[in-house]
């Protein structure tokens, strides 16, 4: 197989911290190579060097056999290397076609050839079997549709090497299937090579021809996917056996703390009822778009609800705004840390204190700095948040530590119910275990714990009780013992066929 890109003995440091050490990596024509490793293993840095975002400190890089120096992203693109970053990088006010051709617009005599670009974009989209109007405004599309625009944009450059950094994290099961069909098609046609980065190991069997594993900035192992077992892959990624991935603590089920009755909010939460007891952690399972995040937001008063009742310790409470929920003792650690969870440009101290200023302020609303410092000190200590100091910007922390700050700001007050939305997304295994332990602590202290997760093993391994959502409704309930992936999936897809048809139609109407 033809070598498309080859990196040999690459080193990279950021301000004295080595993030890549002697890493070698290659992509060949006609293969999908899965680049695996925990967060912080250096995968993203490696592909950013390949795509010209960063310059390497040492090592050689060959593209189509000829050595290249430091690249700019534009040069890498011209050489045929396209990258789809984890975060969406689209101009939401522009159309799909304008985004696809951004920076490479076709013009005639200085005038944009809008119709040609729109037609060309339509051609790219239909060649990928993506059913989308190229003249739609990107901001009107769902996140998963936007992800597909990113993919179409990358492919429109006639790339030979296509790098995808966690492309499926925002997609539904069906969209992932469609994406895999597209990836396989790209691999088999035109001698392309695909570098595929994902944390979802169960996806690999559908797509990977070869795996390359990294750990702590070093290259560990590369092997054909057929020649390696999943256990070996995991063992190489973590470098040790994970004995107890989900340290679930069993507590006796106590009295009822929290109850939601017939809650409806918008199109995504329909007639939801459930209860929460002391000493249990309830997991909310479901596919992307099932309405789980919307449910947490409706309970917390972010979006408001149309009908239904919420009870805490037997009393009905009215929640119209997050401050009502917080005052009653219901708190939410949201899914999107950078968007909803943290003020990234404020310090860790200010972030932790933010929802707790009521208890930190004395007369005249003055913040008591001593109390504040004590609270922040205690929180960072209890949660083992690694910091050079509490004044550091929250945005500069690693994902795991950011998540701990988001959780920590809520644990610093006496809450009755803590809702986590995707508490372990994008954080490494060690940090995950710490988050689980935190949830265990809450359980033991008689606090109601509820968490939304898209990781099936996490739901099964950690939740004492599992509620499955589909299409805005609760479609199933299992105890942690009886749940299996199959059972959950069966409930989670209960309305899937019906939903897909009608939902797609609704989305198109909205966009028009």
């Amino acid at each position, binding site marked *: 197989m033809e070598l498309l890109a080859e990196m040999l003995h690459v080193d990279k440091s*950021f301000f004295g911290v080595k993030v890549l050490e002697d890493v070698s990596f290659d992509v060949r024509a006609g293969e999908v190579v899965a680049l695996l490793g925990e967060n912080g293993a250096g995968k993203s840095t490696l592909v950013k060097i390949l795509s010209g975002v960063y310059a390497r400190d040492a090592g050689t890089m060959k593209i189509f056999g000829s050595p290249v120096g430091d690249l700019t992203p534009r040069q890498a693109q011209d050489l045929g290397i396209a990258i789809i970053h984890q975060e969406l990088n689209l101009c939401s006010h522009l159309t799909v076609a304008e985004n696809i051709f951004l920076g490479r617009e076709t013009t005639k005599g200085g005038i944009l050839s809008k119709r040609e670009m729109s037609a060309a974009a339509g051609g790219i989209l239909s060649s990928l079997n993506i059913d989308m109007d190229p003249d739609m405004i990107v901001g009107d599309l769902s996140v998963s549709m936007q992800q597909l625009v990113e993919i179409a944009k990358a492919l429109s450059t006639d790339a030979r090497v296509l790098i995808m950094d966690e492309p499926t994290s925002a997609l539904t099961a069906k969209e992932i299937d469609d994406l895999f069909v597209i990836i396989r098609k790209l691999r088999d046609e035109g001698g392309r090579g695909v570098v595929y980065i994902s944390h979802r190991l169960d996806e690999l069997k559908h797509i990977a021809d070869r795996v390359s594993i990294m750990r702590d900035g070093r290259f560990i192992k590369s092997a054909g996917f057929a020649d390696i077992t999943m256990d070996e892959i995991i063992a190489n990624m973590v470098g040790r056996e994970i004995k107890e991935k989900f340290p679930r603590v069993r507590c006796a089920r106590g009295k009822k703390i929290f109850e939601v009755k017939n809650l409806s909010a918008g199109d995504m939460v329909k007639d939801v009822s459930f209860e929460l007891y002391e000493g249990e952690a309830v997991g909310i399972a479901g596919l992307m778009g099932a309405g789980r995040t919307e449910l947490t937001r409706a309970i917390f008063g972010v979006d408001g609800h149309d009908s239904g009742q919420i009870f805490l310790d037997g009393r009905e409470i009215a929640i119209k705004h997050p*401050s009502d929920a917080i005052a009653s003792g219901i708190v*939410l650690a949201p899914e999107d840390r950078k*968007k909803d969870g*943290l003020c990234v440009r404020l310090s860790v101290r200010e972030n932790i204190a933010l929802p707790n*200023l*009521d208890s930190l302020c004395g007369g005249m609303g003055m*913040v008591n700095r001593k109390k504040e410092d004590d609270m922040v000190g205690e929180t960072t200590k209890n949660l083992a948040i690694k910091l050079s100091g509490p004044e*550091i910007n929250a945005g500069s922390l690693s994902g795991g530590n950011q998540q701990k700050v988001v959780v920590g700001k809520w644990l610093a007050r006496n809450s009755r119910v803590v809702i986590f939305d995707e508490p372990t997304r994008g954080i490494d295994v060690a940090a995950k275990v710490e988050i689980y332990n935190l949830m265990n602590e809450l359980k033991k202290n008689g606090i109601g714990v509820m968490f939304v997760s898209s990781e099936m093993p996490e739901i099964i391994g950690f939740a004492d009780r599992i509620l499955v959502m589909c299409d805005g409704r609760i479609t199933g309930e299992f105890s942690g013992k009886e749940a299996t992936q199959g059972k959950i999936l069966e409930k989670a897809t209960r309305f899937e066929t019906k939903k897909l048809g009608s939902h797609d139609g609704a989305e198109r109407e909205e966009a028009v």
Partner: protein
Amino acid sequence: MNTEKRNVGGRILAIRGMPQVITVTIGLLIIFAVFSMLSDNFLSVRNLRNLMRQAAPILIIGIAQSFVLITGNIDLSIGSVVGMSCMISATLMTKGVSPANAVGITVLSCLIVGSINGLLVAKCSLPPFIATLGTMTIARGIAQIVNNNHNTDSIGEGARVFRRLFYYEDIGGVYSSVWIAVILWFIFNFILSNTRTGRHIYAVGSNIDAARMSGVNINYTVTAAYLVSAFCSCVAGLITCAAGGVGTMDAGNTYELYAVAASVIGGVSTLGGQGLLLGTVVGALIWSVLQNGLVMAGAPVAIRNIAVGIIVVISVLLDIVVRSGKRIRHKKTS
């Protein structure tokens, strides 16, 4: 970025935004030194007292704009509120209303403009640029209408105490308008850095979604910032009235932009969530030293304008360069 408790200097440096303030302070000292060399009169006690008096209203409107900018919004109505305050207070006093009552009525009317700004921006989600562009025009219209489209006559003998209190009185070698600016600065700096509302102002400007999800009342916080802005603009208008002894309809014209300049030179980000009122002091001083120093050095008006414009752009440019340098450093952890 080590924040060990052992040394005070380190702790001060660790305050968010403090490095920028120190940078511009050095800039201020350099500008100051240059003018001292260019002009013999610049360093005279008389001129320095004058300089302080010129800086006072700039600092006050700088505080006004800084509050709003830190919430991630902007207030274009500042200059018009200054004019409105000047005209309303002067008109009332020429009509024989006692200065105390005149001041009270003026403050109330300015606060109404502030609360309308807050209502439009926070509750009605109007873009702040548009909302305050509207109130800017309306407030200027009010300034013109209160005395039938004429500047007022002299506010008269009865207002002597008022004029001394707001402008002429010399207390400990410093004019009263400077004292007012200093007192306002202490009060509002305390509010911004030590109270819950102040913390919420930063949080809203830094990440409005995260602030809402943390239970912050966005409408209240944004309105509070606009009220502070209107109040400070009102005081600046009263000072203008006391200084001239008459109400002029175009008082405070384009002050909103001077206020942006003082804030931004001092390190307040127009994107919100960042900045210290200490920086606004330095920004207001740089602005006033440039104006005063260029006059003392005999520069013509045109040169003054060009020089001041260049300084504003350079100081923001410097800030962006410094911050983007930092951002690269942060990438390693993400």
